[in-house]
């Protein structure tokens, strides 16, 4: 019998709140984190997209100036979220040799890399800071969290584009099940609201161009969706072997019951139109969780608001859940947060955990005319009550490269009212 893994701590810094309580309150209310960018580089480079969803709270509210100086913004966000999750878990004593980190990023230290490139060209090699490489490396967030918490059972960095954050939970679950760790801090971080990725995503027509109305630009499932909105931030979860959590009388949010990762092997950026890779991931996550389609009551969808992306996810959900898909309520929280790329799976997993814990599914905003080819039961307007008893919720994440990652969260209840 595999070890059961439970979730005992949550952390986040996002465009709709700098900590989990604020983010969750806003996610239930339905607010947009997208706004017009005020940075001078938008005009300087004549970018076609003028808005994004930036974090609401500067990392330096939590980190000291000196700490922040040695970290790329993506690593700063990771440490902010990980500290919140760790404090939330209430863990006071831990065997540090049995504590691991799995912290993902999609893009890595793009600000550090390109700032250093500017310095090299303008001022020469002597002015390139010695910390440049450790700051830009994609394992920077995992390494910083490991250093911060004294996690010595490995610091892992899944990099699978927009599936990265969810894949981190997959790695965390495996680390605990296989006995290599008792506690894992898993999450994802991204800080890529930078002119280069913005220009690149624009060039591939992936970003919404709704410059005159940033707040309504991210509109998953709407017939008038025209692309995703760049977001940034981090999410973190403390995963713990159940016996470890019970021994210390921990508050348990839910069980990380199953995870899966598959690859489309279809196209470098386009999703398989039949959603075959995503279907296999959904079925595998349910099997891993020893759950049946009928157990699922809620899905936090990947739903980025691109014309081509939202539909195959529906096809996959229908294939994996069968007719039961009609009984499942779906939240597309990127409508509020924008797309946090490698952090999105982590932040959305935090929301999925809160949904089963409080028995409330967060809302999807900006859905005015639902795409008739995606007849999902989408939560709009007000949060949806989830049923009593034992329930399972899924979080899907898909990434460029054909990466599919799914996590299944189980709660046996009872419903916990919000503080």
């Amino acid at each position: 019998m595999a070890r059961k893994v439970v979730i005992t701590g949550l952390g986040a810094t996002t465009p709709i709140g700098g900590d989990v309580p604020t983010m969750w309150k806003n996610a239930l209310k339905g607010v947009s984190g997208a706004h017009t960018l005020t940075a001078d580089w938008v005009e300087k480079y004549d970018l076609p997209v003028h808005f994004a969803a930036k974090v609401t709270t500067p990392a330096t509210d939590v980190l000291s100036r000196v700490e922040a100086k040695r970290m790329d913004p993506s690593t700063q966000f990771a440490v902010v979220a990980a500290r919140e999750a760790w404090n939330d878990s209430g863990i006071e004593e831990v065997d540090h040799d049995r504590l691991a980190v799995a912290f993902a990023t999609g893009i890595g230290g793009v600000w550090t890399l390109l700032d250093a490139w500017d310095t090299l060209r303008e001022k020469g090699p002597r002015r390139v800071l010695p910390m440049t490489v450790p700051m830009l490396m994609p394992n920077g967030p995992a390494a910083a969290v490991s250093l911060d918490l004294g996690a010595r059972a490995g610091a892992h960095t899944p990099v699978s584009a927009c599936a990265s954050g969810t894949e981190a939970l997959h790695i965390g679950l495996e680390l605990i099940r296989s006995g290599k760790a008792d506690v894992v801090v898993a999450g994802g971080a991204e800080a890529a609201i930078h002119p280069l990725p913005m220009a690149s995503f624009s060039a591939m027509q992936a970003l919404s161009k709704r410059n005159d109305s940033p707040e309504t630009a991210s509109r998953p499932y709407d017939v008038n969706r025209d692309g995703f909105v760049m977001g940034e931030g981090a999410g973190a979860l403390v995963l713990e072997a159940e016996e470890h959590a019970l021994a210390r009388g921990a508050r348990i949010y839910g069980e990380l019951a199953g995870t899966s990762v598959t690859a489309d092997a279809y196209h470098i950026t386009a999703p398989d139109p039949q959603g075959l890779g995503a279907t296999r991931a959904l079925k595998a996550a349910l099997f891993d969780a020893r759950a049946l389609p009928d157990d699922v009551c809620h899905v936090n969808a990947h739903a980025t608001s691109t014309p081509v992306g939202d539909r195959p996810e529906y096809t996959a959900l229908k294939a994996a859940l069968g007719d039961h898909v009609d009984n499942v309520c779906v939240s597309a929280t990127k409508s509020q947060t924008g797309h946090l790329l490698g952090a999105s799976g982590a932040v959305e997993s935090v929301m999925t955990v809160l949904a089963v814990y409080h028995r409330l599914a967060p809302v999807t905003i900006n859905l005015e005319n639902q795409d008739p080819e995606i007849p999902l039961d989408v939560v709009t307007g007000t949060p949806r009550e989830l049923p009593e008893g034992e329930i399972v919720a899924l979080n899907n994440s898909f990434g460029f490269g054909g990466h599919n990652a799914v996590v299944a969260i189980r709660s046996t209840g009872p419903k916990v009212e919000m503080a």
Partner: protein
Amino acid sequence: MASKEEILAGLAEIVNEETGLAPEAVEMDKSFTDDLDIDSISMMTIVVNAEEKFDVKIPDEEVKNLKTVGDAVSFIEGAQA
């Protein structure tokens, strides 16, 4: 040309910016590693910033001889000439 006092004050500012140490803690007789707990990476950043601030060159092979704040102040003072 900056005086010894001006160089000390400027270095203290650079050290504060890099490490967060109070500028008053940066005194002539303090060792960068033993007293101020400055690691090699911070030291290189401080050196590069000092080069820019005082318009001097501090060769890499010279950095290992700059054990105390006073050593750095004297070197920068001499290098200005």
